[in-house]
């Protein structure tokens, strides 16, 4: 194993909460696209050798899985392929393109305004821990601020989420830039993501 320690992963496994199986499907699709079948097999072998029950091929999109596995999956992907944090951010940015739930919600709530309204529900569709809320949405000012509260997990996930939010807005807006301006893991009461577009 590279930089990750088994004890660290074991600790993560004890994190409370659950996540939809769709995230593992999304991870698998991204790896298939970037590294091909061989890459996915390499990751699966790594996960299996460490004894984590992540089934990239058979996970049910709408099924619930322990939240810790979500972070473990990201950490093992980063470690297996030697990716940087910014590559994990890129992975987060591509994820909504694969996500059935995202595509489904986009078919129902086409405009940014309608979509922003759905953010809290959207979060709950994926995670049973934390709450995401829209603090500010200015259509004319082209700015969105969201807070993620009660969600202290792992810094790598912050990067992933930064990319994820950016892509969601990119479906509707041009030249979106999203940045995490406050992190709950750095003595802030919540995570804050500010997105601006042209």
């Amino acid at each position, binding site marked *: 194993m590279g930089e990750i320690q088994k004890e660290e992963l074991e600790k993560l496994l004890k994190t409370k909460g659950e996540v939809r199986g769709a995230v593992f499907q999304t991870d698998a699709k991204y790896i298939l696209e970037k590294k091909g079948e061989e890459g996915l097999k390499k990751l699966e072998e790594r996960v299996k050798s460490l004894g984590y029950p992540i089934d990239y091929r058979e996970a049910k999109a709408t099924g619930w899985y322990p939240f810790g596995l979500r972070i473990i999956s990201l950490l093992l992907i980063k470690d297996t392929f030697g990716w940087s944090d910014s590559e994990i951010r890129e992975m987060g940015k591509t994820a909504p*393109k694969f996500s059935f739930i995202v595509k489904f919600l986009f078919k129902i709530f*086409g405009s940014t305004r309608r979509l922003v309204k759905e953010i809290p529900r959207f979060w709950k569709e994926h995670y049973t821990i934390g709450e995401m809320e829209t603090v500010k949405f200015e259509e004319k000012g082209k700015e969105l601020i969201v807070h993620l509260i009660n969600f202290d997990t792992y810094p790598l996930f912050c990067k992933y989420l930064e990319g994820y939010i950016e*892509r969601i807005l990119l*479906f*509707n807006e041009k030249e979106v830039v999203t940045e995490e301006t406050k992190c709950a893991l750095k003595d802030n009461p919540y995570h804050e993501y500010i997105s601006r577009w042209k």
Partner: protein
Amino acid sequence: MEIKNQKIQRDQKIISEDLSILESQIEGLWQFLPIPICFANSVFSIINASKALEDILGCKGVEAIGENLKNVLKDFERIKRELMQQRLIISKETTLLIKNKKEIIVELSAKTKEDEKREIMGYFFAFIDITEVKEKEKELQRKVQELEKLNKLATGRELKMVELKKEIEQLKNKLDKKSS
């Protein structure tokens, strides 16, 4: 109360499983369909695209998802206007802009997806590649023009021959008169 909760949990599990099946069926359909089709949201960003469309556009994997149709359709504004007014377009000829600055002539059909208040929530698009048909049409046109030319030439020759025959006849008559 506990029995009720158990029933709810059981129902949720069944719904969840059904949704998973539905998801894989829908995704499978997008992959399988041999027709280039897509669903775009209200601002014309592609949300779902069939494998056939990705192939036509020369996109790899999910590259087409998130792409705006404005960058793909040559006369996007005209199509958008028409779609907003009529909410349905059937077999309209247009040009698809694909990778490497290439163009493909297609027949476009599109339909709006509306909510119960008839507010537009997205659009379905289908494209039929007619580049080959167009090329054959051009070839046919060229051949028709060649035939017309040939026909003109043949007709002209025939008229000349009639004229020459008349002339021969006249000369023959003159010769006959002289010898008699």
